């Protein structure tokens, strides 16, 4: 948690506003401001809504792209929103083996995006979205490795490769089309509200 503590403080441009958000009675800076909590809640809700809206079309999803874009603005704090999303999924569908997968797969995307924050072009992130789709099955097969050994994990991964390829292609196309409009929209929100540091 030290890592999160040192990196997760958000600073709004408006100093007076920041003071009222971040200063507790003891004068310590809070890790999460009220604005953060609101934004994280919205982000988790948006992930769930977008996931449900597109779930009737197999292997087409915008969750990957949204997590990448949000992480670029919110940093490691997106982890909380991602786990919130996983929590909502569990509430809707009940617990399953996929719960374990989701608990590490989506946060891994946040971590990778954080490491790629220096890139200004959309293409590294479009590539990331595509790769994430292509390796989704491989990453999700890890629990099977522990349950049934390498043969089970391999069989499970191989059986899903056609879906992974489709997932990678749709992620690539979706990100190529929507990355720029989404970042433009978030830039506008950032400028008009002072959110996202």
């Amino acid at each position, binding site marked *: 948690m030290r890592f999160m503590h040192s990196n997760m403080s958000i600073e709004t441009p408006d100093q007076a506003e920041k003071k009222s958000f971040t200063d507790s009675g003891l004068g310590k800076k809070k890790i999460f401001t009220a604005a953060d909590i609101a934004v994280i809640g919205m982000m988790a809700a948006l992930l769930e809504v977008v996931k449900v809206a597109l779930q009737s079309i197999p292997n087409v999803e915008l969750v990957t792209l949204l997590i990448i874009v949000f992480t670029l603005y919110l940093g490691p704090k997106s982890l909380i929103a991602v786990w919130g999303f996983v929590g909502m999924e569990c509430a809707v569908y009940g617990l399953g083996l996929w719960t374990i997968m989701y608990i590490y797969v989506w946060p891994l995307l946040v971590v990778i995006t954080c490491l790629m924050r220096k890139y200004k*072009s959309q293409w590294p992130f479009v590539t990331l979205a595509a790769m994430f789709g292509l390796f989704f099955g491989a990453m999700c097969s890890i629990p099977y490795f522990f349950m049934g050994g390498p043969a089970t994990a391999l069989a499970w991964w191989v059986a899903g490769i056609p879906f992974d390829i489709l997932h990678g292609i749709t992620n690539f196309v979706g990100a190529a089309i929507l990355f720029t409009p989404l970042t433009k929209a978030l830039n506008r929100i950032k400028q008009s509200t002072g959110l996202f540091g």
Partner: protein
Amino acid sequence: MKKNTKIIISVVAVLAVICLLFVAYKLLSPKTSQGSKAITIEVTDNNAQTKTYELKTDAEFLSQAMDELAKAGDFSYEGTNGDYGLYITAVNGVTADYDADGAYWSIYVNGEYGSYGADSQPVADGDKFGFVYEVYAQ
């Protein structure tokens, strides 16, 4: 870097991974052999009674051999098609209800616990398949 270069690198990288995955899929998918195969199917029911069937088949996948066996009589099964393929719910009239008591029909292939559903389990000459009624102990 020019924008076009970035797009090309991105597309090439994605296509390269797609090709690798495609090759992996072709090489690692369960292989099937055609022709007449002699196989054994053993059904162990909820009373641990075992019934053995021997048959010759051209089936590529286990479910096809099961269908042939069912047509010949003295064997029956029921199943549902779900996201993970054929899920066997009953064999020879014995229903395993996982929701009721944790019971399920497991598939053994040559003595090992099977990795595939019956509709994706390849059949090879000399294979010995087992359907065993098992109960998941909490």
